[in-house]
């Protein structure tokens, strides 16, 4: 799960100035080594309970200004990666609103597989599963399935297979994803309030 987050994250970080990356919940903390240089503007938050976790996600999406006085400039680029288990519809709507009220904050929420059926107000939802090994691969692969995306007919479901690119043979030190198969030609979600399910 968290790998995907790491990746999407990188995609968000690619556009120029380094945004602040906030990892909320120990379950989504990546090993800092894989983040490479991005470690320097990462923040790791370990909230004690679900309530505090949701509060922290909310704060970060809003751009970190508690009590949010009008005219306070939100953080320019915040990418929030959070463990969103136990999030219900109302909570997710709240977070979605928070993301929309902030400026340019991107939220990536990871939920455990058993919560696949729980509805949420996110911009898009993805199902992530490991992809079985094929002969040609030397890298971990996942299958990303777009479950729901605002403005897309429900029935239509699309899937991508992505590959982890780091290390051997790849020059870049920061991890990246490569879409390998199927319909896809673009990396994973970048819409505000995107939600990854996995």
């Amino acid at each position, binding site marked *: *799960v*968290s*790998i995907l987050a*790491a990746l999407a994250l990188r995609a968000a970080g690619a556009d120029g*100035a380094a945004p*602040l990356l*906030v990892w909320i919940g120990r379950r989504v*903390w*990546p*090993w*800092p*080594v*894989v*983040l490479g*240089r991005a*470690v*320097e*503007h*990462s*923040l*790791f*938050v*370990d*909230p*004690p309970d679900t309530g*505090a976790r949701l*509060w*922290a996600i909310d*704060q*970060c999406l809003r*751009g*970190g*200004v*508690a*009590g949010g*006085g009008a005219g*306070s*400039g939100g*953080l*320019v*680029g*915040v990418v929030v990666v959070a463990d969103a288990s136990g999030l219900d519809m109302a909570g997710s709507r709240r977070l979605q609103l928070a993301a929309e009220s902030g400026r340019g904050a991107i939220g990536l929420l990871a939920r455990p597989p058993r919560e696949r059926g729980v509805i949420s107000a996110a911009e898009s939802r993805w199902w992530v*599963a*490991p*992809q*079985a*090994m094929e002969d040609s691969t*030397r890298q*971990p*692969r*996942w299958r990303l399935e777009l479950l729901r995306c605002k403005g897309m007919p429900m029935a239509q479901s699309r899937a991508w297979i992505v590959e*982890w690119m*780091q*290390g*051997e043979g*790849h*020059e*870049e*030190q920061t*991890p990246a994803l490569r879409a390998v198969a199927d319909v896809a030609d673009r990396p994973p979600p970048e819409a505000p309030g995107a939600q990854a399910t996995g």
Partner: protein
Amino acid sequence: MKSRRLLCVQLPMWPIDRLRRRLERKRRDEGGAMRSTDCASEQAQSVARLFLISTRGNVQHVAACCRASQQAGVRAGMTLAQGRALVGSAVHVEEFDPAAERAAIKRLAGWASLRYSPLVSVDPCSLHNRIGAEELLPDGIVLDITGCERLFGGEERLARHMVQALGGAGFEARAGIGPTMGAAWAAARFGTREPGELCILSSEFHALRRQLEAMPVRALRIEPSTEQSLVELGLETIGHVLSLPRATLPSRFGSLLVRRIDQALGSAIETFEPVRPRPLLRLERLFDGPTPQQEAIESATRELLVDLSRELLKRESGVRVLEAQFERIGRNGRGTEVLRERLTLSAPSRAARHLWSLLRPRVEKLHLGYGIESIALVALRLGRLRHRQQEYVEERHQGNEASRHEAGELIDTLVNRLGPERVLRGELVESHVPQRAARFVPALEGPGRRSAPLMAPELRPTVLFDHPEPAEAIAMGPDRPPRLLRWRGRERRIVASFGPERIAGEWWRASSLSSDAWERDYFRVCDEGGRWLWVYREVPLFCVQDVPRAAAPRWFVHGVWA
């Protein structure tokens, strides 16, 4: 004209006394929770020997040690091992930090300048207090007490007062008073025998000269090399030196000697630069009688914050640690008690809005009782913050700095609710040992050092377990990757694997053999479901040909590509 009077206070055991105070404070803080449980061990700890060490190259030297160890023969400059051997009992060892000591003695001078005399300086000349090869550390302070003695009823009482105050705080101190800095310096160090004693030298020239003549040449504040050559010639006291023809001295012993003699006797002028501590920034608002209304308290606090930020703007600084004090009427309706709320910020700030957003939840939770009499804001620590129209920055002007500033606000908000140990930042460490390559530090401690340079990009899992999880594996051969792995209760068939990559522990760090001396063969493996694991096999150490290898190698899962 009445001559100047200077007071010199020497603190021979300053670093050690500070360390002892630190330890005692720590013990007190912990002792609140478990007072009765281990009194015995506390006592044992209180008599433990104290060492401060400095590391040069890779040798640890004793920089300072407590009296008890001095009596056992430990001297500054010895290696730590020597010192331990001499003392032979439990030793508490800490790293010696010259910068912190220097700052602390400056703070002491600041205290003295508020309490005893406006002209106080850190002793500018402590050539004999060499720590290590070239570190020069002040070990005392100088006060110009001319005229100040009246407030205390005489200079002797002033000095005794100060020495006792220092002694009460746990600092060994000796004092000397004289008409010049040189004389006072010598008096404090060589006119006293026991700690806590006081030596007063006369202002009258001949009497002063007589008193100084008995002191050793070292009291002249000369270079150790000069002292040595004087002593080799049998010139052991100042009297001996003074009896020599003055004209011959500079060519034989350097010009410093003559200058020091003149300074001690008052025929050459010596000046010092007084320390001027900045008073704490403190703003206060008194109510017209006890006020129990929450709204009134809140609005007063906000006004104070606005005033504070205006003050900070003038000083071109921002607050790092802010304490809000609320004076509340006592429970019995008589007397007052002070409620303190302390805010710690990750970056200096003077934005009233931000400070208020941090302070508000605390104020809301405040128990007002019969009413608040006054509110005070004290900026305990300030940080430099350059002028910027930060409140009104347009979005397009927001550069890196502005966004860093706001990141700071976000950190503060999170820390304020969740606590400092729950908001962390990552730090890369230059180490090839997986569990050491990165660590988390509280974000409050500031950006601090830059991360260590990265290792070559190697394949590393995205999640590393704190503790490797044992697994059962079947491998085709002793050096082959596993084919079947049982981990977390599931049997996985391994369809692909890469490796091995051998990683050895940093045995040179090992304090005990078991912790760091190991070798592991890491494999990246993929099971049939597509999950990638980072597994390793422990390589038996010291596998000499004759010794049979351990029957079954032990396997662990250390990380996953989640």
